[in-house]
């Protein structure tokens, strides 16, 4: 094999490798594009959480908000839990999602604290961390009282 043939062979090998890489990259790009989730519309809106008469005086009230939710091809209902509370004359809404790893906190009647069942996070009634690994207080959700309907509304 002379030098000319050798160069031709190298060039051809390079072209074959490039072509195969191109096909591989195109297929990987296609699968990657399909696997990348679409951007999510996170527009918030005001929604009824409970009637002001539902709130017990001595403990936060767990309100479950259900909303129609398109989960890809699957039509479902997204249910969100917020804890409503009355502080003086004001209302307060705290997210029921633990800021550590996303488990659902619950109000403990005996300790008067929010407890996370996963890794032992504890929050006080204001949502402040008092024990365990949570890195931040429970998220505050915007809340208002609709004076016409007496409904407590939250912005989610």
């Amino acid at each position: 094999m002379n030098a000319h043939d050798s160069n031709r062979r190298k060039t051809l090998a390079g072209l074959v490798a490039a072509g195969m890489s191109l096909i591989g990259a195109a297929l990987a790009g296609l699968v990657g594009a399909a696997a990348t989730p679409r951007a999510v519309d996170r527009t918030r809106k005001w929604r009824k959480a409970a009637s002001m008469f539902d709130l017990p005086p001595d403990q936060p009230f767990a309100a479950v908000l259900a909303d129609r939710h398109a989960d890809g091809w699957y039509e479902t209902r997204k249910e969100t839990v917020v804890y409503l509370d009355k502080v003086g004359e004001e209302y307060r809404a705290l997210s029921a999602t633990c800021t550590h790893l996303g488990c659902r906190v619950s109000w403990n009647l005996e300790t008067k604290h929010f407890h996370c069942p996963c890794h032992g996070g504890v929050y006080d009634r204001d949502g402040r961390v008092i024990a365990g690994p949570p890195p931040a207080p429970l998220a505050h959700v915007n809340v208002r009282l609709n004076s016409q309907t007496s409904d407590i509304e939250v912005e989610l």
Partner: protein
Amino acid sequence: MKGMWASLVDWLDNRTGFRWLRHHALDEPMPAGTGWWFTLGSLLLFGLSIQVLTGIGLALFYAPTPDHAWDSVRYITTGVRGGAFLRGLHHWGASVVVVAALLHLARVVFFGSYRKPREVNWIVGLVLLHVILAFGLTGYLLPWDQRAYWATVVAINISKLTPGFGEVVASLLRGGADIGALTLTRWYAIHVMVLPLALVTLVVAHLYLMRRHGISGPVRPQAGPSQMFFPHQAARDLTIAMLVGIVLAVMAWKGAPPLEPPADPTSSNYIPRPEWYFLGLFQLLKYFPGRWEVVGALVVPGVAMGLLALLPWLDRGRSREARRRLAVLIPFTFGLAVVATLTVLGARDAPAVSESRWNIQEIGGAAMVNTSERCTRCHRPDGLAAPIEPGRISKPGDWVAMHIADPEVIAAGVRDAPQGSKTAQAETKAMIAAVSHLRSGPPPALDSATTHVYSEFARQCFSCHTLDGAGGKDGPDLSHAGLKLTADIIEQRIIDPKSVKPDSDMPAFGGKIGPEDIRAIANWLASRK
């Protein structure tokens, strides 16, 4: 006849070369002294084979959608011939694979088998371990029960801690805005297609590299002739596989742990716990509060894995004997002890918070659901709808409420609920409360007389009176009624309140509740001190 058979085999060998393949696969010379410690790799291969075969069996029936996944797994357990055993084998088989992989890894470390020239095979083995753990993680979500859902919530939130692109990783794992249908199909595809492909590739690479360099053999080379893998070492492999197979079959005979209630993102009384092989990591996360979370979730496991991966380059002495490699073996043993301790601590940590106590209204409501013609005319074994079973109510709460208020409703909001009497409304509320609680399991077992009293109280009294923190606020709290009132006075107050207390605004129940029921309620309230 024999000549024909031999000719046929010769022809097949000529066309396929299978004799060369058989010779190459089985006639591997093993160093003298190779013994039982070298059966662990084959045991792992045996476990993986069981997972593949039982996985195919399960995939014949499994439906990866939120509204069918739980039911399809339930059907596998109760409706498929041998289904409970099949699922049990797959469930416990996963533990066998993890144990075999860890033992194999430990054997390689203690024997120094990762040393030159086997560095690449050591790395391939570590990647294989991660693939096995990924199988466990993705398979966990598939039954779509409470345990599956909440373990996945935690796993995806851990992925958010990845420095720089945590949200991207979490989004790729989730598939959609929240954990739901797109997560389930994604994890199913990873579990049955991506990971098996990776597994086969890595196992083939691992075996190829093992054959290329030969097995490392005993730590101290022994004199004597080498033996062929087949049948000597193969007999040891088979013995271990059969013993483990028997243990696995015994464990699987009782099936996998029972399904928990269907996934409920609003549940606040469920205590999520991961599978045992992730309990160490679960426990570790508790020790790193606030912004140190990433250290427990990623840095500590990452550094440990990194050190393991670098072992062939850190441990380069000549001798493979343990006493000359204490600098490696002591930290490694310490690491194993830490993982084991964390796992035990994680297993022992079962908070008592989540005891979901049934209140009086819910117990009474559950009795009504079981006996009310409104429910039982359809929900019965041969009825139009399946019987109501605790722990398998997957419809959303307001759908259930609407359906109980108006049983012919097919979707919440389609038709207004018919207005009934106050008693009918109280009944409806009690049944709604009961069905909501039935999601997480059955009510406490009580005798029929007590259940009847609870039903009557839920129907007639609960909307005005509080009992143990639940109930209406119009009337006095009756949690400790027996401290102040006798059964006779309570009975009289129920029949005609004004005869005992002229300014009472409580309605008279004398003609509304039967005398025997009033007496039973009064006795029961009087017993509450």
